[in-house]
């Protein structure tokens, strides 16, 4: 009787932990994108959405309405294009 409850609680805890970890990674990546955009001298107060287009290719939407295409070109340079 108690065993199903234990399994359910454990599963829920694992899912929540994974979600939290994913959220942390997501926040970390958002900060990475934000710093990258800032290093290129472009404004972005906060990343509200980051869409992955491919390997090292992202479209970032900032809270202030700016949108950027951030990617690594074949020469290995990080490029930030304002959309």
């Amino acid at each position: 009787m108690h065993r199903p409850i234990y399994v359910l609680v454990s599963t829920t805890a694992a899912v929540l932990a994974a979600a939290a970890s994913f959220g942390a990674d997501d926040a970390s990546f958002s900060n990475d994108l934000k710093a990258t955009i800032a290093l290129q001298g472009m404004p972005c107060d906060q990343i509200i959405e980051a869409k992955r287009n491919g390997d090292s290719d992202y479209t970032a939407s900032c809270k202030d309405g700016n949108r950027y295409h951030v990617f690594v070109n074949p020469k290995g340079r990080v490029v930030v294009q304002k959309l």
Partner: protein
Amino acid sequence: MPRTVGVGFLFVVALTACGHFKGSPSPAAEAPARSAPDVQLSSDGQTAVAAPDTLPATPPAEPPPAAGSPAAGLPATGGPTAASPPPSPAPAPAKPAQPQTAGNGNPRGPRGPGSPAGGSSKPLAAEQHGAPAAAQAAAAQPVAKPPASPPLDLAGLEQRLKDTHAIGLFTKLSLKNQVDDLLGAFRAFHGGQTQPPLADLRQRYDLLLLKVLTLLQDGDPPLASAISASREAIWALLADRDKFQKIQMG
């Protein structure tokens, strides 16, 4: 008659004995006399404060009179006189002692103020000597700092920058691009191809370092401080042609 004479003789003897007995009570009276001086001291002192001061002084002073009590006859009359001298000397030291405290401005002035003043004078002297010492130390520190910067571990800093989690992957790559751009500018400067003013290179170098420090100061403060401490040493490597070429070769 003979009885009357005998009784009278006995009476005279008794009186004599009584008179002689008064001499013995005098020692007994000495005891009150001893306490009397104490009482007198308290009364003579009129300053109850003097009594306690004199009390300790009188006991040692009185034992000799008590020893000198052999002059038992004196105590009766001498008791007060003898007691008066102890009180007078005792109050004398006691009173002078307090006046000394009041007038101690001179004697204790050196002591009280002496300790403070002496202490202050010593500190003053120490400060006077300390000021130049501090100035010398301050002058010596800047001299000591330049040698402290030379220990530059460029490879170590590079590895720490690669390993730090304070900067994300995209940001690291972007920083590397900018570092490569700046190194290219230095290469052109030292190669003589183009002549960007060294001040311009210095400005770009400072700006790039500022970016790196901004990214590191929250996530990896030790690395940020290490890089900040190595700022001039790295610039010396970049600005000097020979050192820069050695870096490029390495």
